[in-house]
């Protein structure tokens, strides 16, 4: 309830007062008041309405205090916002506006992520700082600077013009996916604070898909995240090691999330306006269809990767496509495709090379590749897996 209502309340107040900072402070006041009052007095009939009304009154109080110092904007805003906000229609637009403001391309990507989690997600500054492994002070400064830029540069609080929409939607989708990946891949350190980011990204993805029902890539992104997250319970073995797709216990995949993700993929297929997120979701839908790794329809996956490469060319896509090539045409066909990629700084490049070389029984080269991978990741579970692979090379199969 808290996170859902936080974004809604900030969005409504930001529109009414034209000031995101004021909106955020007032909503924080309202939640503080709620946590004081509700435990003894019980929940009000409409908690969401209570939060918004309380926050509005707090904001007006703040403005009155400031307007005594002669601020005509404050007076105007007070006059402007006498009516209590209505429940749905315009509120949805408010949240969409807030998403577009938080993900404005004029803001740096780290600022976009932090703002989205803080304002829309309602995560606290310490929570965001922990998730991104920076100090609270650093994160607080990042948020203050981003909000100052919104105010001083005049980043508008509205859904973008039609002509800018495709670029702006891409910016929003990439922020949400970045939050998801940060939670999923956890480039270093502990995992616990991180899984929360996946759940938050999915929540934001659901919100966006609901707010932009005609945007197939929003559905595609949601489907992609659901299908990946469905495998989460199987990603670690009982002794805490990382299990890749090939070795996962598929019985522990979350069937409910898979069904939801696959239904979205089918919806996208019917609409037939493919884009990178939808294609990646389709690839994951094929994986989640297979009862075992061996039974995977690799030919279909390879075909989808060909499509993805055409829609969004890049070395990472080529790397993943090469994995599909190895399954369809064998490791000797895939290795040259991997070797020509300029991804020496990416641990997965070396890990995949190591796997291919090991399957080709080129043990010494595989060993070197795994060691290069090991040098490039700080993630404990990934390191454990790579170390085990290196040991396995010494034991003849």
């Amino acid at each position, binding site marked *: 309830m808290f996170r859902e209502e936080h974004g809604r309340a900030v969005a409504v107040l930001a529109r009414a007062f034209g000031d995101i900072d004021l909106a955020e402070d007032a909503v924080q006041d309202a939640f503080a008041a709620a946590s004081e009052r509700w435990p003894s007095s019980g929940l009000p009939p409409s908690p969401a309405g209570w939060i918004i009304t309380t926050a509005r009154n707090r904001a007006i109080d703040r403005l009155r205090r400031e307007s005594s110092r002669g601020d005509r904007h404050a007076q105007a805003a007070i006059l402007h916002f006498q009516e209590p906000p209505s429940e749905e229609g315009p509120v949805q637009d408010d949240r969409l506006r807030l998403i577009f403001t938080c993900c404005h391309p004029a803001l740096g990507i780290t600022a976009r992520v932090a703002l989205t989690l803080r304002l829309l997600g309602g995560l606290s500054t310490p929570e965001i700082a922990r998730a991104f492994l920076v100090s609270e002070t650093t994160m607080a400064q990042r948020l203050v600077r981003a909000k100052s830029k919104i105010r*001083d540069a005049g*980043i*508008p609080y509205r859904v973008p013009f039609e002509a800018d929409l495709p670029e702006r939607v891409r910016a929003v989708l990439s922020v949400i996916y970045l939050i998801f990946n940060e939670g999923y891949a956890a480039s270093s350190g502990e995992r616990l604070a991180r899984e929360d980011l996946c759940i938050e990204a999915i929540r934001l993805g659901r919100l966006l898909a609901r707010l932009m029902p005609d945007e197939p890539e929003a559905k595609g992104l949601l489907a992609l995240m659901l299908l990946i997250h469905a495998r989460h319970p199987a990603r670690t073995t009982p002794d805490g090691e990382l299990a890749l797709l090939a070795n996962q216990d598929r019985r522990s995949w979350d069937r409910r999330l898979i069904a939801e993700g696959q239904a979205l993929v089918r919806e996208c297929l019917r609409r037939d306006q493919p884009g990178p997120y939808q294609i990646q979701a389709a690839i994951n839908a094929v994986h989640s269809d297979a009862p075992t790794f061996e039974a995977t329809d690799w030919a279909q996956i390879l075909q989808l990767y060909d499509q993805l490469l055409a829609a969004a060319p890049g070395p990472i896509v080529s790397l993943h496509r090469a994995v599909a090539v190895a399954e369809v045409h064998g490791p000797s066909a895939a290795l040259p495709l991997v070797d020509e990629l300029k991804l020496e700084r990416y641990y997965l490049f070396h890990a995949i090379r190591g796997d291919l070389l090991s399957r080709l029984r080129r043990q010494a080269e595989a060993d070197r590749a795994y060691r290069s991978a090991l040098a490039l990741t700080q993630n404990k579970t990934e390191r454990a897996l790579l170390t085990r692979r290196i040991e396995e090379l010494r034991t003849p199969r």
Partner: protein
Amino acid sequence: MKQYLLSVYHAEGADYAPPADEIQQIMSGVEAFNTELRSTGTWVFAGGLHPSSTATVLRLEGDEVLTTDGPFLEGKEHIGGFWVIKAADLDAALDWGRKATRAARVPVEVRPLQEEAQD
């Protein structure tokens, strides 16, 4: 209305000068951009600058003002000209900035002024 500074950055020196016909295209593009700024009431002020080697820097050191050869920042790229425009918000200013960079064919920095427009 808010006001924004649109500044044009480019590398200086003969090595970086575009060929004559391209210069001609840039000049007519910028001219058309200026006309559009004026006809839409967006124009506040604009100017092209002489090369950064013509700049002089003044600096207060204690009670004395030191005069040195400029520019203030050494580097390959310098501000070569600027516009001050009126715009409702950053998105509107960025739209003008996009037109400016297409016309001038070099990067444009958009930065808000602290002061709002008078009218």
